[in-house]
Structures are given as structure tokens and as C-alpha cells.
């Protein structure tokens, strides 16, 4: 199996090249076939790889394939080497499998678009880059994938480039993630300086020997890596790009801004877990950022009216959960949440896409409604996804992953009550807006004229994802309910088990609290948006809730803050120096020379007597010199 490893990223890459170079001449059918086919085959290989891994002899299997030496100098050798272990496999599986489903969906969804080929080219390139990111054997290659997905995200957010706002959103996404990326690359430099290697296994091996726990260097490195992850994964304070990124086509949002790319930060931290484990401070910071993010973004999600923005904020919030889990050392719980989240969030986005298209590109949820009857299949799929998002107990995948995170937030070695409470608040909010979403979009009366219902190419991926959104959680049960821990065992070869601290209450109590909170959140949503909408109307008219809503709606004013703090000073600074102050300097020399020329020219006035005087001056000068010397 090992020798076919390269096919997984190369197939989408080949798809990209074909589409980019020959896309103009291909029929839509051929484009769809190429674009979707390459990812589907890659998914197939990935699944084969998984089965190979499962059936594999070893508990410690790592696939390595070295393609060629990328570059090598005296001190540094970097190879284009793929390395796949259990952690990578999870990601590969999600990227290819969910990616394939989204591609299939998109082949129908984007059919009317003029730049069909460009769309699939970018999507394929994205899949390839993302695969390189998770399969990289060294940090440079990882960074290659890391930047590659950033670029694809940029290209796809700005896919409909003719609208200036879309381009702005794309730029914003790229630049803000770039800030994180730069932190990451500085972290890489630091790692290289300290360890002299950029091979991930070597780093993970040597770090514990080289660094004492909590030393300054390792904390700096960990924080820099974290900053990289924060940029990519849209964590506070670098989260503002993601809601705007919804300007891209919906399948893009589903694939890139929900299922895969935004979780690259999670992958990075999990991948470099040894570094983080050596730095308790960085761990705490990670957890803190996760918890802050999940609340900040959740609050914004509650009040948004654009269906995609709701989902975007919810994505930020859910990734906040993952960071929280990573921060408290619940590695496998974080990855597990990524796993389930990929399914249900992709599902939600795709379903939202169907709804949007069905309503002639209407994205405001308050102009939707009553779709339960028109689109029953989509409704049930969406319901499955929303349920999973809200973590409806036992029957949704989201419950299993979120429950694990909440439990560890309290009980893991790095956890404490504050994180747990933050998680609970987040859970309530999540449940609330999930309910709001379902109720407002699908229930009630129809408000907008509808188009044609979706075809089978679009519904089949929905159904598959809906199925997985419900069942994917069953592979990992809470400890006290059922002894099924397939997922954490799978990852056990890569990630260390979570160590618990002493003195925590029984898991059962915490679970009950969480469930109650979740259900109450759902009920609140149902109550406010369906049963008794008058309360909301009353709130809207009163001052404080309206102000709070406005505050949340604008994403906690982060955009305005950055605008004042960074963008405006930057524009001012560049604006005043547009003409280059040093240019003025050289122009000054020119002006001086010309002035000097003019004053000298004055002596050439044509008067013979003045010329004689000039000779006299010369003589006086010579005599003066003689007198001086």
C-alpha cells in the first residue's frame, strides 16, 4: 500500500493541472468527471489505506514514501516525503471522503456557473494541498500544504470575483491567515535553531530531551505554532475572516471553511503535541483561546440572520471546542470532534446550499420558512445535522464528541471548572441557535417563491452525510456508558492518552448537567422563535438587548477594532509616504544643483570688466594663500 501513497495527493493535483490547462476546452461533463473523479479515486485509495491499516499487522504502522529530495544544504535536508500515521489517516479520510461527497454535490450545484472548470480546478488543488498538509513528513512540506490551502481558500472565496466584496473577503482571509502563518514559520525557524531538524518525527523525539518542561524556548515555539493554528482555524483574535469567507460558493464553505482547512490548526497542534505537552503555559493558553472563541463566536451565531454566517460562526465556535480539548490534553477528543464535526457541518452547509439555491439565492433565514413541506428530504437531513451540532443526547454524533470534550475540560490534567463552564455555556448557545435555525428556516410559513427541487446528485451526498452525522459517534462512547473506544484506540499509536487529574466528580453528573443544558438550549430556541415570538419582538425594541444583539451581530466589533487599530494606521502610513520620502531627498539635491548652477551662471554675465575683476580676484586669492602659508 505504501508505494501508492503519493497517489492520494497526486490524483487531485493531476485533476487540477488538467482542468487548469485544458479546462476551457472541456465539456462540463468532462470537467465534472475529472474534478469529481480524481477526488473520488483518491477517497477510494484512502479507504483502502484505512482498511489496510486496520487489517494491518501492526499497532504502530506508519506509511512513509519518499518522493524526492526537495532541497538540501549542509545543515538542512528536506525531502518531499509523505508520512501517514493514524492521525493523518483520520484527516486523509475526512478530506478525501467528505471532499468527494462535496465534489459530487458541487458538480450539480455549480452546473450553471460559467467558470465551472476553474471551480473544480481550485477545489482539486485544495484537496491536494490539504492532503500534503496532513501527510507531510517535515514542517516545510507541511507549510507548503498549509500555504497551499490558504491560497485555494483565497481563490475560492473570491471565486465570484466580479463582486468587489467577495475579493475583499478573500483578501481578508488570506492576509489574516498569513499573519498566523508567519508566526508559524517563525516557530519553524526557532525549532530548527534549537533542534537542527525539521523532520516531524525527529522533532517529536528530540524535543523532550532538548527542552525542560516549561522552558522559555519551548513555550515560545508552542505559542508561535499555536498562533499559526489560530490564524488558520479562525480562533479569537484572528477569527474575523471566516464569516466573510462565506462569500464563496457554498460547497467551498462546506469543504474548506467547515470540514477541513479550518481544522488545520487542530491538526498542527495535535501533530506537534509533544511540544505543547512540554509547555503547560501554551496548553492553558490554547484551552483559554478555545473557550473564549467558542463563546464569542457562539454569541455571534445566535443573532446572525444570514444562514451561512450562522454556520460560519458556529464553525468557529466548534473549532473553539477542539482547541479547548487540545488545550486540556484531550487529544483524541479534539480529533474526534473534528471527525464528527466534519460530517455534520458539511451536511449543514450543503443543505443550506440547497435551500439557498431553491430560494433563488436568498440567504436571510427570516425570509425562509415553511420548507419542511417543500423539501422534506433536505429538512430531515438538516435536522440530523443540526441535531448533531446541538449535540442531542445519544442519537447524534455531535453528542459523543462534545460530551468527551466537556468531560475532559473539567477532569483532564489541564482542565478546570472555568473551561467546563465555558463549554457548557457554549453548549447552551449551540443548542439554542441550532434550534433557531431549524425552526426559522423550515417551520412556519413560506415567505419566498421557490425554484426547482434539488436533483439526486445533490441529495445523495446529503443523505450519506446525514447518516454519518448520526452514526459516526457510535465508535467512541463515554467511558461510563459503553466500552467502545475505537477512535481513541486508533489514535493511541500517535497521541498520548489523556491523563486525568484527581478529585473530579463522577462523570455521570457532569453528563447529566451537559444534557440538561443542551436540551434547555433547544427548548429556549424553540420557545423564542416558534412558540412565543412576541418576547423577541419586545427585546428588539428595548435598548440593552438590542445593543447587545448589535454587538454580537457585528462579531463583537472585532472588525471595527482592527479597522481602527491596524488598517487605518497602515493606510495612513502608506498614504503619506506614497511619493517616497527618499525621492524628495534626491530631488532636493537636484534642486540644489540647479540653484547652484543659476547662481554660478550669474558670474558669466558677459561683462568684460567683470571678467577682469575675476582675474584680479584670482590673484588676490593666490596672494592670500601665500600669506597664509
Amino acid at each position, binding site marked *: 500500500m505504501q508505494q501508492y501513497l503519493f497517489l492520494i495527493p497526486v490524483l487531485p493535483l493531476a485533476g487540477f493541472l488538467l482542468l487548469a490547462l485544458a479546462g476551457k476546452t472541456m465539456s462540463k461533463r468532462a470537467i465534472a468527471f475529472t474534478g469529481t473523479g480524481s477526488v473520488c479515486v483518491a477517497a477510494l485509495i484512502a479507504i483502502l489505506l484505512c482498511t489496510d491499516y486496520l487489517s494491518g499487522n501492526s499497532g504502530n504502522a506508519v506509511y512513509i514514501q519518499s518522493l524526492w529530495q526537495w532541497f538540501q544544504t549542509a545543515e538542512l535536508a528536506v525531502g518531499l516525503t509523505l508520512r501517514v500515521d493514524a492521525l493523518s489517516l483520520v484527516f486523509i479520510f475526512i478530506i478525501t471522503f467528505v471532499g468527494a461527497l462535496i465534489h459530487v454535490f458541487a458538480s450539480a450545484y455549480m452546473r450553471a456557473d460559467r467558470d465551472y472548470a476553474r471551480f473544480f480546478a481550485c477545489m482539486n488543488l485544495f484537496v491536494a494541498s490539504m492532503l500534503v498538509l496532513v501527510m507531510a513528513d517535515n514542517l516545510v512540506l507541511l507549510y507548503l500544504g498549509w500555504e497551499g490551502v490558504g491560497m485555494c481558500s483565497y481563490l475560492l472565496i473570491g471565486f465570484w470575483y466580479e463582486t468587489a466584496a467577495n475579493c475583499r473577503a478573500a483578501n481578508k482571509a488570506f492576509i489574516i491567515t498569513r499573519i498566523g502563518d508567519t508566526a508559524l514559520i517563525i516557530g519553524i525557524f526557532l525549532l530548527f535553531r534549537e533542534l537542527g531538524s525539521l523532520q516531524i518525527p525527529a522533532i517529536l523525539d528530540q524535543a523532550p530531551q532538548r527542552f525542560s518542561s516549561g522552558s522559555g524556548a519551548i513555550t515560545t515555539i508552542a505559542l508561535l505554532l499555536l498562533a499559526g493554528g489560530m490564524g488558520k482555524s479562525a480562533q479569537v483574535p484572528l477569527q474575523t475572516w471566516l464569516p466573510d469567507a462565506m462569500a464563496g460558493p457554498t460547497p467551498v464553505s462546506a469543504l474548506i471553511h467547515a470540514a477541513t482547512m479550518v481544522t488545520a490548526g487542530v491538526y498542527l497542534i495535535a501533530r506537534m503535541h509533544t511540544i505543547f505537552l512540554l509547555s503547560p503555559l501554551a496548553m492553558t493558553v490554547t484551552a483559554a483561546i478555545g473557550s473564549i472563541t467558542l463563546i464569542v463566536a457562539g454569541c455571534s451565531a445566535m443573532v446572525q440572520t444570514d444562514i451561512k454566517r450562522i454556520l460560519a460562526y458556529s464553525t468557529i465556535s466548534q473549532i473553539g471546542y477542539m482547541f479547548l480539548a487540545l488545550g486540556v490534553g484531550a487529544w483524541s477528543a479534539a480529533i474526534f470532534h473534528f471527525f464528527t464535526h466534519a460530517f455534520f457541518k458539511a451536511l449543514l452547509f450543503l443543505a443550506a446550499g440547497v435551500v439557498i439555491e431553491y430560494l433563488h439565492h436568498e440567504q436571510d433565514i427570516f425570509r425562509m420558512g415553511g420548507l419542511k413541506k417543500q423539501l422534506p428530504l433536505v429538512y430531515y437531513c438538516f435536522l440530523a445535522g443540526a441535531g448533531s451540532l446541538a449535540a442531542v443526547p445519544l442519537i447524534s454524533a455531535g453528542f459523543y464528541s462534545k460530551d468527551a470534550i466537556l468531560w475532559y475540560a473539567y477532569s483532564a490534567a489541564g482542565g478546570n471548572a472555568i473551561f467546563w463552564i465555558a463549554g457548557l455555556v457554549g453548549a447552551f448557545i449551540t443548542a439554542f441557535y441550532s434550534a433557531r435555525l431549524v425552526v426559522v428556516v423550515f417551520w412556519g410559513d413560506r415567505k419566498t417563491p421557490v425554484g426547482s427541487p434539488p436533483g439526486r446528485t445533490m441529495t445523495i451526498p446529503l443523505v450519506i452525510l446525514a447518516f454519518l452525522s448520526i452514526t459516526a459517534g457510535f465508535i467512541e462512547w463515554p467511558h461510563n456508558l459503553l466500552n467502545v473506544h475505537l477512535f481513541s484506540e486508533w489514535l493511541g499509536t500517535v497521541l498520548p492518552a489523556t491523563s486525568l487529574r484527581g478529585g473530579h466528580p463522577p462523570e455521570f453528573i457532569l453528563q447529566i448537567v451537559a444534557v440538561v443544558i443542551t436540551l434547555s438550549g433547544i427548548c429556549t430556541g424553540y420557545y423564542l422563535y416558534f412558540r412565543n415570538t412576541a418576547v423577541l419582538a419586545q427585546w428588539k425594541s428595548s435598548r440593552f438587548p438590542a445593543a447587545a444583539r448589535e454587538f454580537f451581530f457585528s462579531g463583537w466589533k472585532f472588525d471595527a477594532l482592527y479597522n481602527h487599530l491596524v488598517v487605518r494606521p497602515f493606510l495612513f502610513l502608506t498614504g503619506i509616504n506614497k511619493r517616497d520620502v527618499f525621492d524628495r531627498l534626491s530631488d532636493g539635491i537636484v534642486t540644489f*544643483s540647479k540653484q547652484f548652477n543659476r547662481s*554660478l551662471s550669474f558670474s558669466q554675465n558677459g561683462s*568684460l570688466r567683470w571678467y577682469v575683476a575675476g*582675474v584680479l580676484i584670482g590673484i588676490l586669492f593666490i596672494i592670500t594663500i*601665500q600669506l597664509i602659508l
Partner: protein
Amino acid sequence: MSELQFQAILPFVLLAASSIVVILLIAFRQRHTVIQVTGFLMMCLVVFTMWQVRTVLPRALPPLFLVDGFAAIFTGMIVFSVLVVGLFSFVYFEEREENPREYYILLFLATLGGAVLTISKHFLSFFLALELLSVGLYALVGYLRYRNNAIEAGMKYLILAALSSAFLLFGMALVYMETGSMDFAFIVQRLAATRPANSVLFIMGISIMLVAVGFKLALVPFHLWAADVYQGAPAPVTAFIATSSKIAVFAVLLRLSQQIGLQQFPVFTTIFSIVAIASMITGNFLALQQQNVKRLLAYSSIAHFGYLLVAFLPGNTAGVEATIFYLSSYSITLLSALGVITVMSTRERDAEDIADYRGLFWRYPALAAVLSIALFSLAGIPLTAGFLAKFFVLAAGVQANLWLPVTVLVLASVVSLYFYLRIISTLFADAPAAEERKHTLHPFFHFATYATLWVMLFLLCWLGVFPGMFLAVVRDFLLLR
């Protein structure tokens, strides 16, 4: 006078003879063409004899003259310049109404003055030769009296030159008074014998003499005449003033300084450094926005002689070599540039306005090529003689650790780039509609003029790329002393 002495002086005799021949030809009412061709041949003969008699050098003709390799080189350069000036003159003067024939008498007389300057080693010969040169030039500058304010230029030149001659003489008198000798070589001996070295009268005398030298070389602050005279004089005469007369005066300056050891006196090195720096700066800045090409060349020549003084300051052999190389490349360069101006000039006026040259490259590529190469050479860009010349000067300066003048030289040449480039870019600018020029003369003479320009161009590039041979010849000659 022994036979060998006569051989040594023969080229100068021939030179003197050539003006007499011209007078005779005029007396026999020969045509301009004949005079031109005769003059050309006579000049060739002078150069040829000079080459032939080099074996008898050095040879002193006491008390006035010393013909040595040094003088031979300088005379060669002077006569070569005159040769070229003569070639340019034909077309230029033939197109004017005035009688061009006496021009050659004056030209050859002035040349004789210049040539004799190079072999003079006595105040008397110095003075006589200088006056011969000057008086010839007064008439030459004002030769085309109805044109170009030539009379005004001639008058200005005359008054100032006579004034400077007066200074020269007074200075000589002071030196003579102090030392009792007018021979360059004896002055120092007598000085050493009679008085301590820093004699006030002696130093005062020499420095007053330097006024005249500085005037002829148009060094700041005696430079004010240069632009007016360059502008007013006919283009070939301008070429003569800029090349032959300056070469001659520089030759005598070099000889004087070598014999007296001027560089040993801190007073004089200080004066020369300051004059050099001032000339470089003033010349280049004056030229900066000048719209008249002839004036611009005048200003640039002020600067160039400032550069030259940097090589003069160390007073060693490298400096002399650099000076000779510089002077020859500079004169070739200026001759090319002024040659183009001569060719471009019309019956009515000299082509001295920069606007006359707009788009020249697209109308007359050959002329423009010569002019731009000449300007590049003045600017000191490689592949041209001017670059190597500047290079040798810098080398001489650096070798003697003259950092201040050398740095000023570099910065001043940066400034100078601006106005050279200004002309060059004018040459290559979009051309106005070209007007047809009528050629009334026999095409052979135009051909000759163009051929001369091409030869100049070739020499510029050849000296700029392979200076080895020239340098070897110079070294051989310098050893004849």
C-alpha cells in the same frame, strides 16, 4: 648650430615654413583647395619629421630650446589637432563668403607658437611662443567678423590675454630679479645658491606667472572668458583653442614644474589643489543647464582641466603619463564633438543650440554616433578613451593619496553626467521633420570630413580599449630626456 641640433629643430622650422608657404600660395593666388591640401601635407610632413628625428633626441639648443621626447609628444599632439582642425575648416570656411585663405596663415602661426612652447626652457622663448600663439588666436577668434559676435569674443580674448601676458611678464621679471636667470633649469640652482628656498619674490613671481597659465587653461578663477570665446569663435577655431593651445600651455606648465620642482612648494600644491577642486565644481555646475553646446563644451573643458590638475599634482612620472593620455584623449574627443558641430553648422550660424541636435541620430546616424561617443568619452564611460583617461588620472591621484581632489573628481563627474546625458538624450529624441541640406561643395570634401570623424571615432574607441600601444610609445618618448 650643429647638424644634430638642426635636425632636432627641423619639425619646428617646417612648421614655420608652412605658414610662409601659405603666404606665398596666397600671393600666387592659389585656390583655397590648394592651400588646404598643401597645409595638410605640410602638417603631415611635420609629424613625419618629428618621428624621423626622434633618434637625435634629446637635444638642447641653448639657451632657448630643449627638444626632447616630452616636447616631441606634445608637439605631435598639437600638430595632430591642427591637422584635424584644418580638415574641418575647409568645409566650414568654404561655405562662408569671406576669404578663408589667410585663416591658414594664422592657424599655422598659432600652431608654431604652441609647438615652440613645448620646447621652450627659457622665459624668453616661453613668452615669445605664448604671444605668437595668442596673437594668432586673437585674429582667429575674430576671423568671421560679421558672424556670431566673433568680434566681441575676439576683443574679450584679446584684452584678457594681454592682461594675463602682462602678469606673466611681471612674474617673470620678479623671478629674474630674485634669481638672475631666466632659464628654467638654472633658476632653481641659482635660487638654492643665493637664497633660502622660500623667497617671497620668487614665489610671488611664479604665482603671478601662474595667472597667465591658468588663464590659458581656463582654470577657475580665470575661466570667465572661456564660454564667451568658445561661443563666439568659429567652430574650428574653438576646437583649436580647446585642444592645441591648451596642450601647449599645459606642456610648458609641466616642463616648468618639472624643472623648478613646483610640487615641492606647499604653496603651489595648495593653490593647484584649490584651483583643481574649484574648476571641477564650477565647470560642471556651470554646464548643468546650459543650452548652448559650445558654451557647454567650454564649461566642461574647465572641469576637465580641473581633473587634469589632479594628475598634475603628484608631479611624478605616472602623473605625466596620465596627463599625456588625458590630453590626447581629451583633444580627440573635443575634436570629434566640435567636428560634428562644424559639420552641422550652416552658412548663417553655428549649430550651437542644443535644439539643433534634436533627433540627430535618426537623421544623421553617423554624426550622432560620433557626437554621442565623444560625449560618453567626456563623461568617462568605458569603451571610450575618456574613460581610461579618467582612470589614469584617478590612478595617479590615488597613488599619491590625494583623496580630497580625487573624491571631488568623482562627485563632479557624477554631476557632469547629467548634462552630457542631456545632450545625448536630445540626440536620440524623436526627430522633427528633417530638412534637406544642400551640399554645394565637391563631395570629396564632405567625404574627407566624414572620414576624419570616423577616424576620430575609431581613435576614441581604440584608445579606450587598447591603450597599451599608445602608452608604450609615450613611455619610449618620455625616456628621451
